[in-house]
Every structure is written in C-alpha cells, then in structure tokens.
C-alpha cells in the first residue's frame, strides 16, 4: 500500500448525500478480477451520456476538477454494497482523500486498506470547505496526516482526527496482514482453547 503523509491537490465539491457504492462504481464493472483500471468507470452514470460522451455538468468532467485528488461530499458517503471496487475506482481516478460529514462503515474501512484517507468533519466545516472547493482550479488544498490538518486555499487550517492505529498504518503504508501474522502464536493458542471449549466449531 502506498504511504499517505501529505497530499496537495484540487478538491472537487460533490454536495450530495447518501452517495452509495453502486453510484461510485456500478455493477457492470464488478466482473473484473483485478484491482486496477476502474477509474474511467467511476461515477459512471453521473459522468457519461448514453452514447459514452461526457456529461459537461458533472464536477469531475469540468476542466478545473479533472485532476482532483480530493473529494468533498455530503453525509453517509459510500453507503450500500461492501464492494471494495468503490475505493479502487476512486484511487484509480486519482482521488486519495474524501472529506464528508459521515461515511458508511464498510466503505470507511475499505479506504484505509487502499491508502485513501477518509476525513469526517462537522457539517458546518464541510460547508465552508465546499464553498472554497467551488473555486475550481484554484481550490488547492493540502492534507497533512502527520499533523492532522487541512490547509485550505484561503490559508485557513482545519484540524481533523484519525484513529491512531489507522493513522499509523497509513503513514507507514503498512500491510496489516503482515502485522497480524506476527501475532501467529496468539492466534494459535486462541484456536487451541476454542477447539476445547467449543468442539463443534
């Protein structure tokens, strides 16, 4: 997993609530057996006309936001299906940070496994960040995970908080399977005890 320390880039405003993972990546793209290549299908139904041409009004089709690295969105972002194809699609598009008032649990977890930072902030702060993001190509934000701070185009600093374990894993780009395998002896003894107490398992 790629480390996440600081990120500087344009933030795209997407002031919709309940953006579900079907919307982030529709089912017809889930037949892949790879993690890559989903970026061009991200937000497919909002992004493309029936003939495959781009819808000019969709935020990520606008010249200013085509290279956005940050997404600012409404509440309950990533609800619905557990598909990790959703963060894969965002990452493949180039989005490495999503800022919203709230996230659905599974999507939130999935982001951390892919080097994407989901930041939760109160609605009033989202509203003010959204207003700054509306300024197009000038809406360059810097996210500093070490300091847990967002620097806005206006020069403001907005603090955020990330669970310490997840923050550590993102900063170091750690493979958490590797970390867990180091606890092999604890898993072994757990299994031995369980086999004795609950022999039906």
């Amino acid at each position, binding site marked *: 997993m790629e480390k996440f320390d600081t990120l500087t880039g344009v933030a795209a405003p997407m002031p919709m609530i309940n953006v*579900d993972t079907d919307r982030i990546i529709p089912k017809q793209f889930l037949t892949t057996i790879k993690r890559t290549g989903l970026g061009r299908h991200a937000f497919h139904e909002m992004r493309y006309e029936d003939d495959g041409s781009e819808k000019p009004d969709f935020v990520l089709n606008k010249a200013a936001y085509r290279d956005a690295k940050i997404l600012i969105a409404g509440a*309950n972002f990533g609800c*619905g299906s*557990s598909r990790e194809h959703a963060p894969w699609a965002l990452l493949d598009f180039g989005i490495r940070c999503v800022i919203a008032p709230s996230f659905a649990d599974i999507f939130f*977890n999935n982001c951390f496994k892919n080097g994407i930072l989901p930041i939760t902030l109160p609605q009033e702060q989202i509203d003010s960040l959204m207003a700054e993001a509306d300024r197009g190509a000038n809406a360059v934000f810097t996210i500093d995970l070490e300091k847990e701070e967002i620097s806005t185009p206006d020069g403001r600093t907005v603090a955020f908080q990330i669970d310490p374990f997840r923050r550590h894993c993102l900063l170091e780009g750690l493979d958490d*399977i590797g970390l867990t*395998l180091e606890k092999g002896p604890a898993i072994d003894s757990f299994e031995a005890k369980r086999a004795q107490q609950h022999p039906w*398992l």
Partner: protein
Amino acid sequence: MAEARTLFDKIWDLHVVDPGEDGAALIYIDRHLVHEVTSPQAFEGLRIAGRPVRRPDATLAVADHNIPTTDRSAGIADATARLQVETLEANTKAFGVPYIPVDDIRQGIVHIIGPELGFTLPGTTIVCGDSHTSTHGAFGALAFGIGTSEVEHVLATQTLIQQRPKTMRITVDGKAPAGVTAKDIVLSIIGHIGTAGATGHVIEYAGEAIRDLSMEGRMTVCNMSIEAGARAGLIAPDETTFEYLKGRSMAPKGAVWEQAVTFWRTLPSDPGARYDTEITISAETLVPHVTWGTSPQDVLPISGAVPDPAAEADEARREGMARALDYMGLTPGMPLSAVKIDRVFIGSCTNGRIEDLRAAAAVAKGRKVAEGVGAMIVPGSGLVKHQAEEEGLDRIFIEAGFEWREPGCSMCLAMNDDRLAPGERCASTSNRNFEGRQGFRGRTHLVSPAMAAAAAISGHLADVREFQ
C-alpha cells in the same frame, strides 16, 4: 456480581485474540463465506505474498452474484461472468477451500446457504465480502460484510482488526397485524431511523414481534440492518433457532449438539445490560410498507401518497427527495397504490427463502399476473427451489404466469441478464432501491413477497390485505 452484558458483548469478548492498542482489537473469525465477485483480488493477494489459507475448513465458497438464472446446463454464456466463476473454481481448488459447484443442489445465495447448511451457528463470528452478511445475525451470530482486502486478511489469518462498534437495541413490542411481515417491520424501522441511523452500531432486535418471527423472518430483518447503516444485526437465539438448526448437514450432532445448545442458551443479553442507543417501536400499528424513492429510508405505508419535497424543511433532504421523485417518475400526492408497475422480482438474500415463496404463492394461487407485467421468481438456493417444487409452489407460480428461475442473486443487483430496462418500474422483494441498482434507469419499489405478488396480480402497487 459480574456486569450485565449484551448478546453482542458476549460474542465480542469471546472472540478477542488480542485487545490491541489504540482501540483496534484482533478478532477471531469462525466462519467465512466467499463468492465470485469480491474474492478474486484477495486470492491474488495471497498468491503474490505466498500465503496459504489458514482455515479452509472454516471457509465455504459458492458462486451467486453474476450467474444466470436461466438453464445453466450448457455453462455461462457471458464471458466476463464465466471468467469470474472459473477464477473462483480455480482459486478454491488451489487453496483447498470447500466449494459448492454451480450445478450442485446446495448452490445458492451465500446468505441463504450458510444458514440452510448449518454453517451459520449462534455465538460465532461470520464474515463475507458482501454487505448483507448481516443476515446471519438472525442466529445470534456476529455477522458483518467486509471489503476484499479484509477477505484476504481473513483467508490469511482467520482474524480481523476491528474497532469495537456501539450497540443499539430496537424493541418491536406487541404482535404484528395480519399482512405485516418481517420485511414491513424492517422497512418501517429504516424509515424511522434513516439509512445512516445505525452507522457504527450493531443492532439487537428484541421484543414480542421479533420473537414471534420464524428464522426466515428474522433473517429478513437482520439482512436489512445494513440499509440502516448498521455494522450488523442480532437476534437472541432461542428454541426457534435451535429447532431450525437441528439436523442441518453442517450443524453439530449428538452429544456435541447438546453441549452447543447448552452454551447457546447463555448467549441472550443479561437483564439490565446497557446499550448505547435504545429505540422502541409498536408492532400493533404497523401496516404493509413500500418504498417510493431511491433510498431504503424513502418508505411509507401502502395506504400513503407520494410525498411532497416542498414540505421538507432541510435543503439537502429536499433536493434529494426532488431528485428521487424525478428519477422515479412520480408526482407528489399520487396514491402509492395507483403506481403502475412493469416488472416483479421475488427473490434475493432478503426474501428468497421458502417462507417467502409460500407467502407469495398464497397470494398468486388461482390468480393471474396482470397483462403487460413480467414477473420472476428466483429461489434463493437449489434446496429452496427443490422444497418449493415438492410443495407444488412452482406449479402455482407458473399457472399464474410467473417465471420460475434457477437460484442466484439475480435482479437484486442485476449483474447478470436479469435487469430492468431504462424507465421500467419493478415491485421487488430485494433490499436496495438505489438509482440503477436493478438496471440502468430502472425504478425499484421495495416490498414484501406477499406485496410483490399482489402487485404482480394487480398491475400496480397494491395492499396485500385486500387479497386476504
């Protein structure tokens, strides 16, 4: 005296391998269900790292999401779907994971077959790369959906790193009136608390109306916990649970069965156990429900009318409602029972079990599907299909004009050919009415199986109570 604990606390405490630092505990996973869509990249990850599957015996794989529900004897025609199923077959073989082939009678939707085979047991932790894993909570198992990276983590270590969720108890008091099913109970709960109402929580469903439900009904309720944002849903195991499990092929037998039941009886929440949130709902005033919008929280009694966004004070919600009505092609004030439909889908991990098919058949019996309506029955598993055929339900459906299909996820997520055409409107027993969920620009109204059958016969959304 020991502190009073909830059902959730007991299962969680029993599975902590390492409490960890910073609130991230290492939790043991007893049961892992695997399907074709969310597992290829996980197996690929194991292969690259040279890691084996730690507990193939605690893992069970089946293809369900993308397979066709028409005759499958000649294989899968769609090349990408076929590749995904073949990849699952190859991966399970290479890693020694038990796999139920597509032509096996036990094949079906992961969340139908786990309980049906007795793979799902009380007091266990169960995961699957699918959000509707919450279904298994009906047995008093802590069951939740995970992403593909976590699928790989479980395959490699049989554990997961998890933050302890909060707890919520939803008590549904009293008896549900006739015509009100488990689906109506859970839809009304989601309407009440909202699609993010239980985010970060594990819900325990309690109360007389929940205890009165069969295991099938309890699974429907727990299944849709994720639609309220919950990590998982739970129902305390009781005699109904044990009765359902006894004799199932993978359930414990003989003396071990007795030992297991003795343990399972200790699982229900202790009197006085505390929850982070408590909600109480009366079952007695419930009526059959139907969704009108593009989120499961957009739900109303069938006797209601399409709501007016102008009456909504919150701007974001107002815009969401207006967008939903535009997408759904509905106008405010229109009675819901006047909404004409083109398609009916009865099936899915929410409502594809034998009791669901019986409820739909009771309405369909001796009646005909309305002209111009395409209605499809997709049993949740080969075993459900077989039992329905033994009971003659297939004949009732076919005579009424329904299609009788092979098992799979089908038009719940429309990954295969079972999907709505743009603009088509469907009464569906599935779990999500998101934009495009059942097909590009398709329009979904979520209902119970009996309500779906009533809609099929009427040609429009209908109140099943008028059919009894």
